[in-house]
C-alpha cells in the first residue's frame, strides 16, 4: 500500500482480516433481514451418539498423506531452479509415497468398513 509505513505482510493480512469482519457483518445483516420471517418448530430425535463411520482407515492414511503433500509445496516452488537433483529427491519421496499407498491397498486399508 503506497503512503503507509506498515509492513506489506501486516497490511496484506490486515486486509484479509477486514474481509473476515465484513463477512460477519454480512451475516448479521442477513439475520436482521429475516427477523420477521415466520418461524417453524421441528422436533427430531437427538442424534448425538457414537457412530460407526466407515472411513476410519482412509482418515488415518489421509493424515499422513496430507502432511506429505504439504512438504511438496516449498519443493515445487524451487524445483525449476534446482533441477535434476531436486527431481531425484522427489523421485525417492514419491516412490516412498507410492509404496505406502500400495501397502495400505494391499492390507485392505482402502475399503469402506
Amino acid at each position, binding site marked *: 500500500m503506497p503512503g503507509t509505513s506498515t509492513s506489506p505482510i501486516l497490511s496484506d493480512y490486515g486486509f484479509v482480516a477486514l*474481509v473476515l469482519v465484513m463477512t460477519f457483518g454480512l451475516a448479521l445483516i442477513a439475520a436482521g433481514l429475516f427477523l420477521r420471517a415466520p418461524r417453524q418448530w*421441528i422436533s427430531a430425535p437427538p442424534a448425538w451418539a457414537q457412530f460407526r463411520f466407515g472411513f476410519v482407515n482412509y482418515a488415518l492414511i489421509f493424515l499422513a498423506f496430507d502432511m506429505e503433500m504439504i512438504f511438496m509445496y516449498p519443493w515445487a516452488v524451487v524445483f525449476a531452479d534446482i533441477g535434476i537433483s531436486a527431481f531425484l529427491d522427489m523421485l525417492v519421496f514419491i516412490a516412498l509415497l507410492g509404496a505406502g499407498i500400495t501397502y495400505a491397498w494391499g492390507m485392505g486399508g482402502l475399503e469402506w468398513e
Partner: protein
Amino acid sequence: MGVIATSATVLAALGVGAALTWALERLFLQPRGEPGPAHTADLGRNLDIANSDRWLLPAGPVVALAGVALAMVVVPFGPDLIGRDLGIGVFYVIVVIDFVVLGVALAGWGADTPDSVEACYRIIAQLIAYVVPLGLAYVGVIMMARSLSTVAIVEAQSGLWFVVLQPIGFVLYLVTGLMQSYRAPFLEPFAVSIGGGVLGASGGWSALLWRIALAGVLFLVAAICAVLYLGGPNGPLLPGWAWMVVKTYGLMALMLWLGRAVRPLSTARMLELSWKILIPLGLLNVLLVGGIILLGIGPSRP
C-alpha cells in the same frame, strides 16, 4: 481505492459471482435429477430445532461463507483487479476453502437431527477424498510457475496455457473440483435422501447464507481453475475481467455438464475413486511435469 472499498468490492464480486452461478445451475437442472446443494434450502421460514446447539448451528453458515469470502481475496480478475496478491496465494486458497467443510460439519453436528449429523460425517469423508489429489494438481502448476502467488501463475501462462502442458492435472482438478463444490456425481452430503443434510436444518437467514456460500464455492473452484490452467485474465481484445468471467463460467458449465452425465457416486465409491485412481494419477502427474520442466519445456525464467 481505499482498503474498505476494495474489501467491499471483493464481497460484492463474490455475491454477483454466486448469483450468476445459481442462475447457470438452474439451466443445468434436470427435471428428475437431484438439485444442486444451493437449490434446496428454504428461504421462507426460520427454523427452531428441538435439540440443536445454540452456537454451533448458526456458526456453520457463517464459517462457510467466511471461507469462500477469504478465498475470493486472491482471485485475480485483471492486471490490477485483485483483492490482495498474497505471496502464498494458492496455498492460502486450499486452506481457506476447506472452511466450507468445517462450516457444514459444525452446523450438521450442531443441528442434532439424524439427517444433519449424517451430513456431517459424509462431508468429512468428502474432504478426505478430495484434498490430496487436489493438492497434487496444484503442485504441478506451482512447479511450472515457480511461485505460489496467483498473479505470478497468471504471468507464467502468458505464452502457453498450462492446460496444454498438464492435461492430466487439468482433468484431476475438474474431478476433484466437483468433489470440492459438492455438485453431481458427488453430492452425497446434500443428498435428497437425507433431506438435504444441513440444508434441511436451515431456514431464513441461514438458508440464504448457505446458498451464497455453496454457489460461491463452485464459482471459486471454477475461477481458480481458470487461473491455474487457462491463463486467468489473459486474452486478446476483451478486457481481463471479461476473459476471466468467460473462462470461469465456461469451466463451470463444462463441470456441471460432465457431472450430470455420470451416475451419482456413494461416499464409499468416491473414496475408492480418489485413493485408488486419482492420487496415483496425481503423483504420476507431478513426475511428468517435473520431467517436462527438466526437458526445458514450459515458461522460461523471467
